[in-house]
Structures are given as structure tokens and as C-alpha cells.
């Protein structure tokens, strides 16, 4: 019997639906089997942007021609120097080949190295350098968390492009990198700077421990604290304190913060919610991203603005807000919110996990200054070494190169890892870098540790392998000088004794003082007036820069050394006509005015005030255009 066409259609439709349902029911068991046979890729970590809706289906169908087209378009536009969509093209190419590490590294490298150098202004260059490493850091690595190559590429990019001096605009990159991190970590408190402590020490001793124990999300921040979990964390921290020879004040601060939360939790209240509600009355929702830290910044700059305030009540409300934000009773809640958001920015903006930072610092015995790209390079390198288990090879080149980057980065920290920001940094004045003596023990241990794998195959009985011996001895000699300059005589003596004992040399026979005299011989080899003056000029110039950057202790040391050279020369001249006709003070004053011309007026006046020199008056300003 023939079926009516429309009936037949319905039968077929129902049959199709039935088959679809039947097939769908097999998906879950099939997935289980795929997982059991390791035929699936690891899921993307939470918070990582998934490939776009449009691209996802293409992962299965038609990917090759789209990828080929995008590559061709990217190459063509690059050849024509058209970069208006280069970043988005790169992203699309990578999203279509998400597990292909070489694609990620090529695209990142292309942006950071090839595209950036074709641009002229430092701002534009920096944009592309940043695009390059952010592509790897924010997308490539989260999608390929076990690929060592990507960690190595990222670390190298940060180290070579930002931290090193190979790019003509490296100062600009360093400045912007540091500014971003200062914004995330916050500025030091008003009363932070005091004799013996400079602004940069805030970042060199930053308490990442309190960020590590901060809540992981807003819900947790606003909820009644989980007493049991907090007690466990406190116990863990106290146990680690007990293992130390002396109490760590940072851990103590973290314990106190947790205890405050635990106490509130025991009473069954949220210690933060009340404060957040009160702040909402002023129009600031501290549970919203960016609001609370923005409020802190605007309060600091005096630029806070209230909205929706009735006319005539503005000043009163502003006063009430300031009172709330400086009330002792709300201090713990304010700190908790601030720490939460800073930790959140660290995790999401620069992808640094505070807990891992704490462990890293414990392993290296030093808190890194994350305003330096070197510190980030070390972080990503260590992460790559830990997580890079994707390839089982006899010699994993990427792994080896990744390890090397740690050594390079720490070495650079020793040479120029003490970063001082100008007060005019936001106006574009680059940071000042000087040696960071804190890196000496770290680098020393790195040499010792890395030698251990080679020493069993070597005949001599020294702590460092012959592979590294030249570099190591050179480093230790320089470290002795840096310790001496910093007034850390005990540490200098310890290193000197180590060197004399393990690597004997005639130059150590005269003891530490003799060694230092030999090292600073050129400061005494000053029988020539122009050369002496040039040396003094250099030292005074350095001192002026250090004063300008508020590194006063180092500036005083530079001036003192200049004075020593001056006095030594004046005392050893063989004829009066060789005498320097100016006093040391006059030389300093003259140079202050000369170098002051390259400084902002405020900086110049500040340096003059520190030196007790009268600043020169301001020159008349011109308003004419070049055509006039």
C-alpha cells in the first residue's frame, strides 16, 4: 500500500529524530572511552578564553583552508607593513591550531621582534612587544600548559626584549613594565620611605604571602569565612614559622590576617560584607573589578569624585568617605579587600600566582622585584621546568635552554637589578638600574647547584665545575666589590675567604684590603688632571642621578668616593700648577647645575636642596612656534 507523501515525510522525520536521540545517548560512553584511552586533550584551565564560537566548529571542518588563508593574509599584510589587524589575525591563526606550540611561538615572536622594530615611536613598539609576550602568556601557555617550548619562548622574550639592552627602546619597555607592576602591586604607604629605606624596597620586600592566602573569588571574600579551612592554613603557616631560625614578619602578617577572618567566621559573620555595604552607599561597589583599587588611587591623588550626591552635601559626603577609608575600625576589612583585588590582578593580568611566588622566593632565598622583567622570566622558567613533561627525550633542548634563562636572569639581577623609579616616571623618565647585592647569594648557589651534575666527572676537588669556573670567579670578584661598596664588609670578607681557599691566586695574598686596593687601582692612578677630573665628573654625575631617583645612600657613597679621588690627587701632585683650581664642593655645585639642565625643574631643585646648593633661576619661556 502506497503511503501518502506527507505521512512519509513525518515518518522519516520521526525516524531521524529517533536515530539522533539514540546516537546522542552513546556520546557520554564514547567520551569515557576516549578519556580512558587518553585520546582527549586536557581541558583548558578555568578563566581561559575559549576559542570563539565561529572558530570552534572550524576546528573540526574546513580548518586547513581557513588557516592557509589567514597565514597568507598575515604574510601579505606584513609585507605591505599593514598591521592594523595583525594581532587579531595571529590570535585567529593560533586559535585554529591551539595545540601547535610552534605556531604560538612564531606568532608571538613575529609581533615582538619583526613587527615592533618596523615602528618608530617607543609607544607603538612597546604595544607589539607586549602583544607578543601576552599572546604566549595569556593564551598559548594556558592552552598548552605542559609545553616547555612556550615557557622558554616567553621567558626569553621577557629577558631579551624587555630586560636586556638589545632593543633601542629598551628603557621605555622597562619603564612601562615597571609602571604596570607598580599599579598592580600598589604604591608604598606615605610613611614608607625613611633613612635606610627607599621606595623601591617596598617592592623588593613585598609581602606576597598575604596575597597568597587571600580569597580566590569575590563570593569567598564576601562570605562568612570557613573557620576549618582557615585554621588549617594558619596551622600550616605556623608550622613553617617554627621551622625557621627566626620569625618571618611577612608570614606573621599573613597569620594575623587569617586569624582576623577566622575570629569573624567563628562569630558567623562576614567581616568584609559590612564594609562593602557601607562603601556602596557612596556609590563604590568594592565587589566590582577595578572599583576598590581605583578608589584607593583616586584618594591618594586627591581626585576622588562622588556621583549622585544631593547638591550642597558633596563636601560632607566626601569627608565621610575619607573618614570611612581611614577609620582604624575598618582597617582589616580594607586590607582584606585590597589584598584580594591585588592578588586577583596578579593572577589575571600578569598571570602570576602569589602562592607560587612565595614558594619560588623560598626556593631562591630572595624576594624578586616583579617590576623587573627578569623576575617574570625566572617565574615562567621555573614553571616551565616544573610542568614541562610533554616530551620524553634523552636531551630536551627546550628544557636545557629554559634552565639557562634562569642563570641569565639572576645574573642580570645582580648587575642591574636594583630598580629605582623617578618621581617623573609617569612623564616618561626611565628607571635607574644599579647592582642588586641581594642576588649575590642566589647566583652563588646557582653556580654551586648547576656544578653538581658535572663535578662527579671532574678530577679537581672544587665546589664549582670547570665548565663555569671563569664566569664564577669573575662573578665572585665583582660581588666582593659590590659588597664593599654597599658597606657590607662581613659578606665581602666571607666571599673573599671562599675565593682564597678554593681558588688560590697571588692577588689574594695581601688580604681583602690589598685585593680591594688592586681592584680600585685606576682610582689611584690619577697623575693626570684631565683623567682625574673625568673620573670625578663621572662619580658626581652618577651621584646626582642617584639623588634625583631618591637613592640617597648610594649617592652619598658616590660623592664620598669622588672626594677620596679628589683628595688623593691633590695630596699627590708634584707641582702646584697641576693642582685642581676648584674645591670639591665647587666641582659638585658646577656639575649640579650642568646636569640639572637635563632634569625636570622639580627634580633639579630637589637635588639642589639635598646638596645644599642654591638652584639657578628659571629661564624665560618661549611660546613661539618653529615658524617664528
Amino acid at each position, binding site marked *: 500500500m502506497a503511503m501518502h507523501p506527507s505521512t512519509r515525510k513525518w515518518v522519516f522525520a520521526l525516524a531521524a529524530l529517533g536515530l539522533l536521540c539514540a546516537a546522542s545517548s552513546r556520546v557520554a560512553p564514547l567520551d569515557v572511552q576516549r578519556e580512558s584511552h587518553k585520546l582527549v586533550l586536557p581541558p583548558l584551565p578555568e578563566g581561559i578564553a575559549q576559542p570563539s564560537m565561529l572558530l570552534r566548529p572550524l576546528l573540526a571542518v574546513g580548518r586547513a583552508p581557513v588557516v592557509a588563508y589567514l597565514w*597568507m593574509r598575515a604574510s601579505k599584510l*606584513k*609585507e*605591505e*607593513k*599593514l*598591521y*592594523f*589587524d*595583525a*594581532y*587579531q589575525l595571529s590570535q585567529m591563526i593560533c586559535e585554529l591550531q591551539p595545540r601547535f606550540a610552534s605556531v604560538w611561538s612564531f606568532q608571538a615572536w613575529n609581533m615582538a621582534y619583526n613587527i615592533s*622594530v*618596523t615602528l*618608530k*615611536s617607543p*609607544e*607603538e613598539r*612597546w*604595544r*607589539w612587544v607586549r*602583544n607578543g609576550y601576552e599572546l604566549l602568556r595569556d593564551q598559548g601557555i594556558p592552552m598548552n600548559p605542559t609545553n616547555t617550548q612556550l615557557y622558554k619562548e616567553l621567558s626569553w622574550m621577557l629577558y631579551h626584549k624587555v630586560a636586556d639592552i638589545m632593543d*633601542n627602546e629598551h628603557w621605555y619597555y622597562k619603564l*612601562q613594565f615597571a609602571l604596570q607592576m607598580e599599579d598592580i602591586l600598589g604604591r608604598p604607604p606615605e610613611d614608607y620611605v625613611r633613612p635606610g629605606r627607599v621606595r623601591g624596597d617596598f617592592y623588593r620586600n613585598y609581602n606576597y604571602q598575604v596575597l597568597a592566602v587571600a580569597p580566590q573569588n569575590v563570593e569567598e571574600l564576601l562570605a562568612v569565612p570557613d573557620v576549618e579551612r582557615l585554621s588549617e592554613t594558619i596551622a600550616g603557616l605556623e608550622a613553617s614559622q617554627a621551622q625557621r631560625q627566626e620569625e618571618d614578619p611577612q608570614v606573621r602578617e599573613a597569620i594575623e590576617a587569617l586569624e582576623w577572618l577566622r575570629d569573624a567566621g567563628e562569630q558567623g559573620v562576614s567581616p568584609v560584607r559590612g564594609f562593602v555595604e557601607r562603601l556602596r552607599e557612596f556609590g563604590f561597589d568594592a565587589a566590582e573589578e577595578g572599583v576598590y583599587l581605583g578608589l584607593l588611587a583616586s584618594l591618594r591623588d586627591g*581626585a576622588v569624585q562622588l556621583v549622585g550626591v544631593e547638591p550642597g552635601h558633596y563636601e560632607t559626603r566626601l569627608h565621610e568617605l575619607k573618614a570611612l577609608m581611614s577609620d582604624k575600625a575598618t582597617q582589616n576589612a580594607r586590607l582584606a579587600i585590597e589584598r584580594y583585588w591585588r592578588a586577583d590582578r596578579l593572577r589575571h593580568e600578569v598571570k602570576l600566582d602569589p602562592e607560587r611566588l612565595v614558594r619560588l622566593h623560598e626556593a631562591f632565598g630572595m624576594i624578586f622585584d616583579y617590576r623587573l622583567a627578569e623576575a617574570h622570566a625566572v617565574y615562567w622558567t621555573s614553571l616551565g621546568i616544573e610542568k614541562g613533561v610533554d616530551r620524553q627525550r634523552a636531551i630536551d633542548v627546550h628544557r636545557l635552554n629554559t634552565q639557562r634563562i634562569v642563570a641569565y636572569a639572576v645574573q642580570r639581577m645582580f648587575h642591574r637589578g636594583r630598580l629605582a623609579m623617578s618621581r617623573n616616571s*609617569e*612623564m*616618561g623618565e626611565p628607571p635607574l638600574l644599579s647592582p642588586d647585592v641581594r642576588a649575590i647569594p642566589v647566583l652563588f648557589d646557582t653556580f654551586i647547584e648547576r656544578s653538581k651534575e658535572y663535578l662527579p666527572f671532574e678530577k679537581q676537588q672544587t665546589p664549582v665545575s670547570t665548565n663555569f669556573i671563569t664566569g664564577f670567579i669573575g662573578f665572585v670578584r665583582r660581588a666582593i666589590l659590590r659588597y664593599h661598596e654597599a658597606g657590607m664588609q662581613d659578606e665581602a670578607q666571607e666571599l673573599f675567604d671562599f675565593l682564597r681557599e678554593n681558588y688560590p691566586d697571588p692577588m689574594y695574598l695581601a688580604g681583602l684590603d690589598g685585593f680591594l686596593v688592586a681592584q680600585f687601582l685606576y682610582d689611584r692612578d690619577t697623575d693626570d688632571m684631565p683623567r682625574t677630573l673625568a673620573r670625578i665628573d663621572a662619580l658626581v654625575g652618577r651621584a646626582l642621578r642617584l639623588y634625583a631617583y631618591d637613592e640617597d645612600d648610594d649617592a652619598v657613597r658616590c660623592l664620598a668616593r669622588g672626594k677620596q679621588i679628589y683628595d688623593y690627587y691633590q695630596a699627590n701632585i708634584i707641582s702646584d700648577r697641576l693642582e685642581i683650581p676648584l674645591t670639591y664642593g665647587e666641582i659638585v655645585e658646577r656639575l649640579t647645575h650642568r646636569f640639572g639642565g637635563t632634569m625636570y625643574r622639580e627634580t633639579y631643585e630637589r637635588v639642589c636642596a639635598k646638596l645644599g646648593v642654591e638652584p639657578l633661576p628659571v629661564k624665560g*619661556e*618661549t*611660546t613661539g*612656534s*618653529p615658524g617664528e
Partner: protein
Amino acid sequence: MVEKHYWFMIMFGFGCLIGLVTLVYVVRRAFRREAGEIGGWELGGAGTRIAAVTRTTLAEGLRAKVASGFALLILVSIPIFWLTADGDGTIKGQVQMFMSYALGFTGFLLALLTILFSCRSLSIEVASRQIYSIASKPIPRWQILAGKWFGVMCLNVFLLALACGATYVGTRAIVSRFKQDLAHELELRGGLTPAQAANAVAVLDSVKGIGKHGAESPIVYAMADALGQPQNQVVETLLRLSEPTRVNLRRFDELRRQVLVSRASVSPKPPDLTEMVDERYEALKEEDRLPDGMTTGEIRKQIKADLMGDYCTIPPGGFRQPWRLQGPVPEQGSDYIMSLRFKVHVGGQLPAVRLPNGLTLEDDKLLCMWIIGDPTTPDFYEVRELFPVRSYEEFEIPVSCVEEDGTVSVMFGNIDPRRVDAVFDLPSGLEVRYGVGSFESNIFQAFLAILIPLTCLASFGVCASTFLSFPVGTLIVMALWAITSSMGFLQEALAVTSEYAPPDYSEFLFVLRRWIVDAIGWALAIGDCNPVDQLREGRAIGWMTLWANFWKFTLLKGGAVMFVGVLVFRRRELASVIV
């Protein structure tokens, strides 16, 4: 050479003969009076009848929801591009990306729509026998096809006008949003009052003078005049702005003068080397140094290539005799900015070096010296800078260095201490660009230029629908469109680009291959200007180019294809005669 490939030549000749016979047969049959057709080639009342078919075609298209589906896609995609186009993060990149993607995607969708709509226009009617109601009326077949073509194009014009309008509004909206943000930031960070901020932003539209970096930027002077403040105070205000905003300020000026305009360009004319080729050929002949195994033509070609190479190459430390480019007569006193665009090549990788004076010459950047204008007068303009090699670079030149008749004298000095030859790929590798119109005029020209390939595609589609079913016709036209769109890639893949010369290959076969690929390219080409790219770069499309494209692709090729379609349709038996 022919003897070596005699079998191929015989077969090739045989194929040509068959093709010719077929063509003659088809033409003869086509012009025979057919009994089934009413009206033949008559023109009287054609307009009314074509309009009627156009209306029914449009109505049918709208009923079929193909057109409305594509229209919806276009209308949805443009706002999505507006929201998601970030470009390189600058205002210029954002506008360029938005324009490029919005119009590029619209062009792509309209091409698809044209193929689908035109291929189904007639074939569906024939298949569903609706054609009987039209064919039985007193309307010639060519008028039916013309009506179909106009129906398709009416829809295209409407949708493209909508897309261009949306792109224009979107572009202006991006600029307007940038200005609002800038004014806000000038108030918030720069410490200006709302009135001052508004003045400072308003003056951005009238900045004059060539673009420079930092405090020398003409933006600073313009703002200083608008605010009545000294330049250093304006600089300090600008330095307080966020870094992306500062970059955008400069990029906005570039956008205003390089993208949201219509700029034409002139390049140096290639020299006439005939005389020099003759001289050198004769000299070689006299010295009995003509290479063996090469024909006279090949030798002369080689000599010409060598001479052209010399002409385009500037040796280390050398200065090129000025190229003289004939541009338009400048309007004195107006904001008349020209720019020089060039691409310089060097052999191999250029390593980075540090000079004794501390200056670092970066890798793959050449230290160039450009002298624009007559150096014996005070009006000349000199640029001494490092420029990346192998990529297009552009810098602005003041109007003062242009001669009264519009001639621009351009001299290049290869002053790089690394001592490498600098080579220009002339004429495309060097051009002077100057403004000839507004952005509005350029977007209108882009609208017309995008239509031209669509007219051609519509002709192909309508022609295909006269003898093919909808799926087959669509597949074929789409395949042809894909081939013509990727012709550049095909030429590169088959190594037949004009720049490529085979090192060790039978010249005849290579020439034949190139000829065949070129012929296919020519036969399938539906347009030879790229309006989206030109609009994105602020380059004028030009009425001459539009006209040239129109007659070549719409009138000539589209007309020819439509003519073939008419011939086929006239021959087509729409209904079998049942006795």
C-alpha cells in the same frame, strides 16, 4: 624549439581547430530565426518589459528568503565588526580594520548572493514551469534575461548602499567616540576645564603641517594656539595622558590625513632605455661578445633588465639623480600635505651595528637620506633617518618643496655605513601621494567599484541559469569565482608571475604556461581594482579607473556573457511539443 614539441603543437592546433569550428557552428545556429521565440531582437518597449521582469525577479528573490537572509547577515555583521574591531589598538588601526572587514565581508556575501540569486533566477522558473507564463507573453528572450540581471543588481545596489552607509556611520562613530574619550581624559588627567578640553579636541580636525614625533608635533602647536598656552605646557598636559591615548593622538592625525581622505599617487615614469639597449647591443656585437645560444630578442631583453637594474640601484655612498614626479599643482595656503611612499630592498640580512658616536643602526634598517625639492633653493626638505627595508614606508613632505607646476623632485642618498646596495622596485616602489578628495567621495567610489565585479558575476550567473540547473550552475560559477579570486595565488603556485624568470627551463613551455594562465585569468577576471584596500589606505579609486573597469568588465565581458546567455536561451526548448 617547435620541433622538440611537435606532438604537443599538433594537438594544440587540433584543439584550436575544433574550438573554432564549434564557435562558428554555434554562432550560425544562434542567429537563425527560431519559431518558438516571440519578438526576436526588437528594442521597442524594452524598458517597460525589462522593468516588469526586474520587479518579478526581485519579488521572487525576496519570497525565496535568500536575499533577506543575506541582507540580515550583512546588517548583523557590520555592528559586530564595529564592536569587535580593535585593530592594532590604535584609532587608525581600529578604523582600518572596521572598514576593511565590514566592506570586505559585505563584498564576499554579496558575491555569494549574486551567484545564488542569479543562478536560480531562470533555472528555477524553468524547472517549475513558471517560465511558461512569461515566455508565452510578447517579450523577447533577451529582455527576460536583462530583466533578471537588473533584478539581481537592484538588490545588490540596495544592500551595498546599506552596507556602505553603515560603514560610513560606523567609521564616524569610532572617531566621535575617540574624541569623547580624549576630551574626558584631557579633563580627568590633563587638568583642563571642559571648555578647554572641547577646544583642544575640536582643533584636531584642523591640524596643519607635516606630522612629527613628540614636542615637534603639529598637534602641540595647534593645541597651544587653541588653548592660548605655551607649547611646553601643552606638552606637559599631553604627557599626563595615558600612554595609549598619547599614541592615539598621533594616530588620529594620521587617520585624518591618510585614511579618511582620498589620495591619488604618482610614480616615476620608467626610462626609455631603447637607445641604450641598442648601443650596448651594438658594442657587444662589435666586440664579438654576444652570448651563444640566445636569440637577439633574449639578449636585448637581458641588456634591458641589466640597465633597469642599474637605474633602480643606488650603490653605497651614492646619490641617485633626482626622480621627477609630476603631481598636481599645489594649492598654496591650504592644508596641502603630500607624502612619499617607498620600499627599499637590500641584498640579504642587514646586521645591526653600533657607530663610534654611540648611535645604533638596527638590523634590517637602512640609513637613508631623502632630499625632496631643489636642494639649491631654501625650500627643499631633507630626511635623514633609518627606514626598515623590504616594507612600505611613508613620510610626509611639505608643500613648499613642490615646484609651481606640481613637479616633485626626489633624490635618494644611500648613506648607510654598512655599505650595501639600495634597490627600488620601480615604479611601484616609489610614489608621491597627495589629497584629491574627501573620504565621502572615496567611499562612494568604493561603492561603485565593488558593484562592478558583481555586475560581471550576475552576468555569469544569469548566463549559467539559461542552460544549467540551479545546483550545477551555482557550483560552476562559484568555482570560477574561487579561481578568479585566487588567481594571484595560482600564478605564484604555477610560477608564472611577471617577476619570475625560469633559470633552466624550456622557454617555450614556460611562455605557453604563462600564456594559458594569463588567458584563464583574463577570461575569468571580474575586476582589477581592489576598492576595499584602497579605501582602507585612503587611496583614491578614481573615476578613470572606475570607467575603465566598467567598460571592461560590465559592458564588454558582462555584455558578452549575457549575449551568450541570450543565444543559448533563444535556442532552449522550454516545453516539449507533444503530438
